[in-house]
């Protein structure tokens, strides 16, 4: 069976089993990967998979089962297991499936893997880096193409099909000088054109250039007084993911622990900060068309000029909180460019750091965040000076958004986000 036939088979089985409501997503996927490790292009991988997820509701109680087979016998068993699980579940009036709006078929991205092109791109990248940045040593490099064809059906008549393909590139490396080594540095991108050199995607070239200056590092003593932190686009992406998890997603809004639960329409960030979630953007190869719970997505603002405009709430989360379901559930952030050149952001920094990676514990419920500033440089009197090691930063996510001082004109598009550099004050920076 293809994925449409599988989803139809499961939906019929759900109805036959006496469920009141149900939904099924059936998908076929093919992954092609060229992988570099331990000094060589070591593996070519092709992965064929099928996934079927079944959710049903009977007497107000839900059961959900996942499997990766289209064997009718196994599909019947999965539906029977979901019925059995629902029988013992706790009734929940907010459990439901998506309502019918407008059915659609979506096609997005490069659907056909170019295996030769992937190999050539990786070989060219390795050779270019060896020639231009000889002190760089790779830990691993992956070039993938993923194709996923899926069908979503539910008992309200919702029917979506989606064909989505595209390339992903990820690299982890370090710089070496004799026995000395830099920290791991990670980069990557999502894209549709395998002919564009990998080194030109996202922040990759910049990370390589900075990496070679990170073998020698400086340890600062005590606190860096008056410290300001310039977050790189990679760091901004991490902080946005933390903000989403801690303040605007289902779990923290349902249990009431989000600091922003009553802040829709209120100022939660500096007025210069505008963050949109744009899975439909043609600029983002990593965008998507459908939510997991059966809705076509639209782009939306999350924070506009510092004011909280939207949460990222699923249908269930919205029903539980009495709020509106979000137009999408995040994962494709675009932050508006500021009006300051990165160079000027650095030159106006008397004392601080520019941070490319945050290695820290997950933030607590109150947004407190502490961790190590990785791949980072000291800024002294407006100049980037030494690479740093063993420097920790400590602050609070909510406070950091209000303490944004400047946003760069320059932005980086890595295929899943378009983000600038952001300068934040009042972060504790401490050394040994």
């Amino acid at each position, binding site marked *: 069976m293809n994925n449409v036939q599988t989803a139809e088979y499961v939906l019929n089985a759900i109805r036959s089993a006496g469920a009141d409501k149900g939904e099924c997503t059936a998908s076929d996927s093919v992954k092609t990967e060229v992988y570099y490790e331990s000094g060589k292009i070591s*593996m070519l991988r092709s992965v064929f998979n099928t996934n079927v997820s079944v959710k049903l509701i009977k007497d107000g109680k839900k059961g959900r089962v996942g499997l990766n087979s289209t064997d009718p016998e196994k599909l019947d068993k999965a539906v029977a297991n979901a019925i059995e699980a629902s029988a013992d579940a706790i009734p929940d009036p907010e459990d439901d499936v998506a309502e019918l709006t407008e059915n659609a078929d979506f096609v997005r991205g490069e659907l056909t893997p170019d295996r030769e092109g992937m190999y050539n791109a990786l070989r060219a990248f390795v050779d270019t880096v060896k020639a231009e940045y000889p002190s760089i040593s790779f830990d691993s490099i992956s070039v993938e193409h993923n194709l996923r064809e899926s069908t979503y059906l539910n008992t309200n008549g919702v029917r979506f099909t989606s064909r989505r393909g595209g390339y992903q590139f990820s690299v982890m490396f370090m710089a*070496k000088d004799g026995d000395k080594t830099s920290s791991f540095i990670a980069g990557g991108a999502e894209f549709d054109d395998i002919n564009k050199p990998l080194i030109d995607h996202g922040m990759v070239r910049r990370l390589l250039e900075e990496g070679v200056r990170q073998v020698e590092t400086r340890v600062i003593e005590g606190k860096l007084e008056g410290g300001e932190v310039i977050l790189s686009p990679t760091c901004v992406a991490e902080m946005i993911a933390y903000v989403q998890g801690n303040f605007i997603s289902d779990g923290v809004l349902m249990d*009431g622990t989000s600091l922003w639960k009553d802040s829709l329409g209120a100022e939660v960030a500096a007025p210069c900060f505008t963050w949109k979630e744009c899975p439909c953007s043609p600029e983002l190869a990593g965008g998507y068309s459908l939510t997991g719970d059966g809705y076509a997505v639209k782009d939306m603002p999350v924070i506009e000029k510092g004011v909280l405009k939207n949460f990222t709430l699923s249908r269930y989360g919205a029903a539980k909180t009495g709020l509106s379901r979000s137009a999408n559930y995040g994962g494709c952030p675009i932050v508006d460019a500021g009006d300051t050149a990165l160079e000027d952001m650095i030159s106006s920094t008397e004392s601080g750091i520019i941070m490319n990676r945050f290695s820290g*514990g997950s933030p607590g419920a109150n947004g407190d965040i502490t961790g190590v500033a990785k791949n980072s440089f000291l800024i002294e009197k407006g100049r980037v000076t030494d690479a740093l090691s063993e420097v920790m930063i400590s602050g609070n996510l909510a406070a950091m958004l209000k303490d944004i001082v400047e946003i760069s004109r320059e932005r980086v598009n890595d295929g899943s986000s378009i983000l600038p550099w952001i300068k934040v004050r009042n972060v504790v920076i401490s050394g040994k």
Partner: protein
Amino acid sequence: MLKDHLRKYVGAGFSEYTELRAQSNTTRRVTLLNGNMINNDSSESAGFSARVRVNGAYGFSSGSDYTPDSIERIIAAARENAVFLDSRERMGKPPFAKVPPMSSPLRYTTEDTASQKRLIEFISELDAYIAAKYPKLLSRVVIANCLDMEKLLVTSDDVHSHSDIPRSHVMVQMTLMGNDGTPVDLFTPFGGMGVFDDQFTTPDALYEKIDALYEKVAAKAEGVYAEPGYKEVILHSDLAGILAHEAVGHTVEADFVLSGSVAGPSFGKQVASEKVTLVDFANTAFGKTCPQPIYVDDEGTPAEDAVIIKDGILSGYMHNKESAEKLGFKPQGNARAFLFSDEPLIRMRNTCILPGKDKLEDMIASIDDGYYFIDTGNGQADATGEFMFGVNFGYEIKNGKIARPLRDTTIAGVAFEVLKTVDMLSDELTWGSSGMCGKKQPMPVGMGGPAVKLKINVGGR
């Protein structure tokens, strides 16, 4: 139970080095958030894979249709991938040294008899207990989580292995309003290796531990922030495992060593206090089965303990066949894959700092101004040996006595510098069994150790 369609390939005489692996990962998860059942899920990800090595180039392919006909097709696809890569890279490497034919039987055979109903009723009763006894909680989350990984492996060396490693956990998170008007939370897993009924009897058996968790989160709500800086601290035995894993374990995985980790030039050198011995146990430690018992790895290598640090000297790495050959070591069974569609990577199994002879109370009494860190969150490692992990709860130590409770913080240091500061190790050992390590693929791991006294960089305000 997986059907053994692979056995017929034992003695099949593959023309190239080949691994065939069938695998089924089954998961079950029930989650209650403030009494709302947000998950009532079960899933199975099953299929098989082939990995073929031609002159040093690996070809890999996998499919979910685990039938005798498909196996031939996937072997051919894997071989074709290897041939393609070999034709481009021309590595010209010789085959691996053969291992003797062997058969490793299924050792864990207990059937998972706990129904979804049992999981639901168990955590519902726990949730009701928490809700009734602790009404001040802002939020409570109770989760039952079971993962079972069953594998069948056949290699061109005529190794045949069948393994099954289940693990079952109940996890509880509590959130309270802190003394500064912001929420604080704590999360604790209970359980370990085995099916649900191996680990859990009745919910009331956990009440005492639930009460202890509430006492900690209540203390944390009144807690203070750690002072940042280089401090003398004691890591509770629950944290020593993550120290072994993050600080040392990742640094000595041979793929990291080959790419340039700081452990390369440190081999044979003093990298820790002579009190420190660190072992990645294969399957059995101190006479008991470890949280992730590996008898044969996913390359068909018989698993044995890997001694990483012996009396403070860096004595070994963790290997797959490729790295062992390159660096001149014997592989010890660290090549593991998470899903049927994943290739084996060098992974830790049960990484443990061996206990010492000190008493925890003497360790606390020996510190004038420092910290006792008790609960941990996530952690990360680095090529430089610099590591970090989150600390979610602990206490100040003032003049040899436990003082005020602490809010969240992070500790960080350079592994081989921090380990040289270890001057006391407690005589007790705790295994953590709920760890999930991330490195291209997720992987369940065991982590263990005693309470450790050392000096480390503390993040704070």
